[in-house]
């Protein structure tokens, strides 16, 4: 213990802190594209969560929706690729017909699983958290079964991945903001679309008639019904449309990030997305920011493995076990969630099944 104390004493804390800041300033622009890419599936999942919860439906099943879509996206793309043989890819993004088919199937899958969640929580009025959990368990079981049945026996199955865009050099070389251009535009099509989808949903939710109605249904469904909004139909529509985002997140995992499917490959991102929704105060922009925050810790791990810091900072970091960085995104999510809950107020009707009053 004494040994540890003396070895800690000998490290100049202030110096290390400055080194850390310097290291971050130097590396953040380098790893920023990785950073935005890592945040993409979480942000997409969070958009799904916002769509659900703004209409008053708790969705714990985002994880399962992502996983199922990731599987069907991979399978559809691979089967189409097998059926039509090699095709030429477009110069930008490397788009091929199999990849497009995969994304389309992923979106449909997300909508289909969402429809199941909508039916269970709106019509059946099952407990919404139980419904979401069942979707997660189903996704894990069914994709595991089908993976063993269809994908494992055919190891050559695959359709490649989307290529990231290479932004023109003169934009990337712009001083100060060039790295931002690179961060948001040196991406594959799905990750790049996230920013646009976030802004689109933000505007729709707060500046359109649909958005006003959705928020009304999430806050006070009875009042919404009295002014002529069909609460049940709107909730169904929003939950099913929310599945599009979960489907895109799944497609991102298999068709843009890895090019293969592993069991349980969503690895908790759907749950981090839920935390992002809460921390982002149920707004698309806020939850996108939260998703960036949660992935910052993972990006730091990537940065350290790519360019290990030197000097005293390097000595300090070597003391920290590698597993710590693996747990960091989850730890940050946990801490931020605990700090945010209670301060951010959920839609008032979230989680409550709506029972239309009978006509007399």
């Amino acid at each position, binding site marked *: 213990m004494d040994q540890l104390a003396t070895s800690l004493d000998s490290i100049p804390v202030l110096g290390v802190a400055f080194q850390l800041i310097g290291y971050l300033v130097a590396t953040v622009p380098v790893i920023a594209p990785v950073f935005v890419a890592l945040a993409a599936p979480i942000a997409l999942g969070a958009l799904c969560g916002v769509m659900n919860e703004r209409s008053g439906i708790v969705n*714990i099943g985002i994880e399962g929706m992502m996983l199922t879509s990731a599987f069907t996206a991979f399978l559809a793309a691979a089967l189409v690729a097998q059926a039509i043989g090699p095709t030429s890819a477009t110069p930008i993004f490397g788009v091929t017909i199999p990849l497009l088919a995969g994304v389309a199937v992923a979106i449909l899958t997300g909508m289909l699983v969402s429809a199941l969640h909508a039916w269970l929580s709106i019509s059946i009025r099952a407990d919404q958290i139980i419904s979401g*959990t069942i979707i997660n368990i189903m996704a894990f079981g*069914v994709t595991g*079964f089908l993976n063993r049945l269809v994908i494992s026996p055919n190891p050559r199955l695959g359709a490649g991945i989307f290529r990231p865009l290479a932004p023109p050099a003169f934009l990337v070389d712009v001083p100060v903001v060039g790295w931002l251009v690179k961060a948001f535009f040196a991406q594959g099509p799905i990750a790049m679309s996230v920013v646009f989808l976030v802004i689109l949903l933000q505007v729709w939710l707060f500046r359109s008639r649909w958005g006003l109605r959705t928020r009304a249904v999430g806050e006070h469904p009875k009042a919404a019904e009295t002014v002529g909004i069909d609460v049940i139909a709107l909730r169904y529509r929003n939950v099913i449309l929310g599945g599009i985002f979960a489907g895109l997140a799944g497609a991102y995992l298999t068709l843009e990030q890895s090019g293969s499917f592993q069991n349980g490959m969503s690895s908790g991102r759907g749950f981090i997305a839920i935390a992002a929704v809460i921390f982002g105060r149920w707004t698309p922009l806020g939850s996108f920011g939260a998703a960036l925050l949660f992935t910052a810790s993972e990006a730091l791990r990537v940065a350290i493995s790519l360019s290990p810091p030197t000097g005293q900072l390097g000595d300090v970091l070597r003391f920290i076990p590698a*597993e*710590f960085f693996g747990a960091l995104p989850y730890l940050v999510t946990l801490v931020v969630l605990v700090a945010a809950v209670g301060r951010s107020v959920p839609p008032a009707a979230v989680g409550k099944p709506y029972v239309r009053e009978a006509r007399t």
Partner: protein
Amino acid sequence: MTVDGRPRRPFWRRGRFGRVWAIAAVPVASVVLALVVAAVIILISSVVTTGSLDVSLPLVAYAALVQGAFGSESALLNTILQATPLVLGGLAVGVGFKAGLFNIGGQGQFLLAATAAAGVGAALATAPGPIAITAALLAGILAGALWGLIPGALKAFSGAHEVVTTIMLNSIAAAVIGYLILGPLLAPGFSFGRTGDLGNAVLPIVLGDNIHIGVVLAVVAVPIVWWLLYRSTLGFEIRSVGANPSAARYAGMRPAGLTMLTMSLSGLLFGVAGSIEILGVSHFMIPSYGTSIGFDAIAVALLGRSHPFGIAAAAILFGALRAGAGLMQVLANIPVEIVDVIQAIILLFLAADIVVRRIFRIRAAEALTDLETVTSSYAGRVR
């Protein structure tokens, strides 16, 4: 016909048995329906993989499943062994449900307990058996309870919903056990990272060649938890908080304290499961120890309707599925993962119980589980 002219109820709806039937009808019907749906899935998947339709395949598969689960003494013992962690995990989730808490962090609690038990057991490998076993068990159980206490405390003090926090804690636990097993607990002299040999801390075998004494713990836990929930003051308080936290607070109970206590108890039961799996079955711990106990336990608790005896029955069913799946894969060429699919379909039918009731003409009894508060506490509105 009875005196008042109404048709007499059929014998299975009468008396004590009738009361059990009223609760058990939907779960039993869900299992039957799930097996029918799974039979269709087996048929379709065999058409996809082999290209030919064999209508008898589901029967062959289920016969192999039953034979593999109950067909011989060793099969039966294997079923019991498979059901053991499920009983404890199911009780853990069920206790949480009773308090309106949803512990989906069983995996982390289980793994951390397993690591603690393996570490202490290996350290005391040469100590006298009873001391080594007791210390290792206690270490595991404490680790599980502590890992359950964390989400309980987070919920009690900040309102962070346990569904999200326990999942985060699962991933954090995975990192912690990776660090512990490859660091302080690493046993030298093996080609892969693992904890040391348990020596005297291995649980003694009491039946056959694989039923260890930990199975007795699982069997005893069922009546103990039943007594705790339905006959003790604490159980009454737990159920009151689950039914209506505001009313419970009004009656002088403290929901915050009970939330922490219940989550610790839930973690403790997962801790027992993790400890005896290591001390009785695996005998050492590795960083990538694979388990789906967290999800499986939820399935068991839902199918058992959060009642200890129902949970025991559900655990034996799922234990039998897992024990028989191996033989089914050999004889009928169905991947063992079909068990996960069957489990998921059972859950789906349980959630959509109105469909099941319509098909089997079962009258509405009570709701699936008393879970009103699970969703209503979402995002920290109800404390």
